[in-house]
């Protein structure tokens, strides 16, 4: 049977992708960051998930205001990097896992989570930057990927609790799939940042740390956080942090945090990464 073997939480700041694509890793601005993610890269190289389900948000790339799905699942054979205005990132095409993705879509809908199903889904930095963070610059991504897209741009996004609950249903879906597959779930976005308005540049590191602590120890309590608290404390774009709760919902209540690293700033954001495994 397929099994959720780990959860990865990571920010998906586009500047990280640009730094990798343009070879800036050794510049002073980036050195501490790239040293800090090295243990995460070693971990995934050793763990080798067959499939990564990447919970992310689209940033006006695949979806515009024409259609705004709250939760969308990519079921295609492959997903091309999107043109976000710079031309597409020169990263490998993302290979999907249509059989598992369709199984998950059916299971979630029958569990009363009304998914949008996407056969056409260009993927932007929200999905490709986490892959670059974990895998660097391979010729081909060493895992299959199922994009799990959450609306966090149009208010209101799903509640934190809805994200946590859909994570539980996601695990149930994965672990009822008959093939032996190691599946990692990525929750991406955040941490605190605000890109817009007179409050642009907001960072709240204390809040980020408390969020990451509670994510490990009391996710059910964390799932009660309101949108207004997140907008206020983590910034208007920091509300992306709800997506980490999808990942957390797919794990046991008791988890071990294998690795954590934080860095401020990356562009206008507070960066965080956390690797979680179920306690044996």
């Amino acid at each position: 049977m397929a099994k959720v073997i780990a959860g990865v939480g990571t920010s998906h700041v586009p500047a990280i992708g640009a730094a990798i694509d343009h070879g800036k890793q050794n510049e002073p601005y980036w050195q501490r960051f790239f040293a800090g993610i090295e243990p995460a890269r070693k971990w995934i190289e050793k763990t080798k998930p067959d499939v990564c389900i990447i919970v992310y948000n689209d940033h006006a790339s695949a979806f515009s205001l024409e259609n705004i799905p709250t939760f969308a699942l990519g079921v295609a054979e492959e997903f091309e990097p999107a043109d976000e205005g710079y031309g597409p990132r020169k990263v490998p095409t993302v290979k999907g896992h249509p059989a598992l993705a369709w199984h998950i879509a059916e299971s979630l809908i029958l569990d009363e989570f009304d998914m949008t199903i996407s056969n056409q889904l260009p993927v932007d930095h929200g999905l490709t930057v986490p892959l670059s963070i974990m895998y660097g610059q391979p010729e081909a991504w060493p895992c299959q990927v199922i994009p799990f897209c959450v609306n966090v741009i149009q208010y209101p996004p799903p509640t934190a609790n809805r994200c946590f609950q859909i994570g539980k249903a996601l695990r149930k879906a994965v672990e009822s799939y008959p093939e032996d597959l190691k599946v990692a779930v990525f929750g991406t976005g955040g941490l605190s940042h605000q890109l817009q308005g007179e409050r642009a540049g907001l960072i709240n590191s204390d809040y980020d740390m408390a969020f990451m602590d509670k994510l490990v120890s009391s996710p059910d309590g964390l799932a009660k956080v309101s949108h207004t608290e997140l907008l206020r404390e983590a910034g208007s774009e920091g509300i992306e942090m709800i997506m980490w709760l999808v990942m957390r919902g797919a794990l046991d209540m008791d988890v071990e945090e294998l690795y954590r690293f934080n860095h401020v700033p990356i562009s206008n954001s507070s960066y965080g990464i956390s690797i979680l495994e179920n306690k044996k």
Partner: protein
Amino acid sequence: MREPRDYDDIPGTYVFDGEHSRKGYHLNMFCMSLNKEQNRNTFRENEEAYLEGFGLSDAQRQAVLERDWLGMLRLGGNIYYTFKIAIYDGMTMQHAGAAMSGNGTSVEEFQQMMITGGRPIEANRSKSEQHNNIGDQ
């Protein structure tokens, strides 16, 4: 106008709710069009002519042409959409952040603020807190 909401007192923040989205639909859909290289090239040839096809209000059109980043937000823009104009202009998020700070902050000052830990949350949680803070000084 919709009823007051609890996030209305967060300072310097334009929550992209239904009312905001309705107001900004055409502006944001114009921004979305800049995802296509061919459209970026057409926009570059003649910005005013390109904007004609998108149904923007006069104020929105003016804000785009003047690169009035705060103005675009106030007229219903969403930062992920309006930032596509900044990308087109070759600007970074720090340029946009400095411009939106609304108090003459330079790009260098904004970058420096980020490197030293970002804009602090203290005195920036609510409009009343900001007001009190100003009063205290």
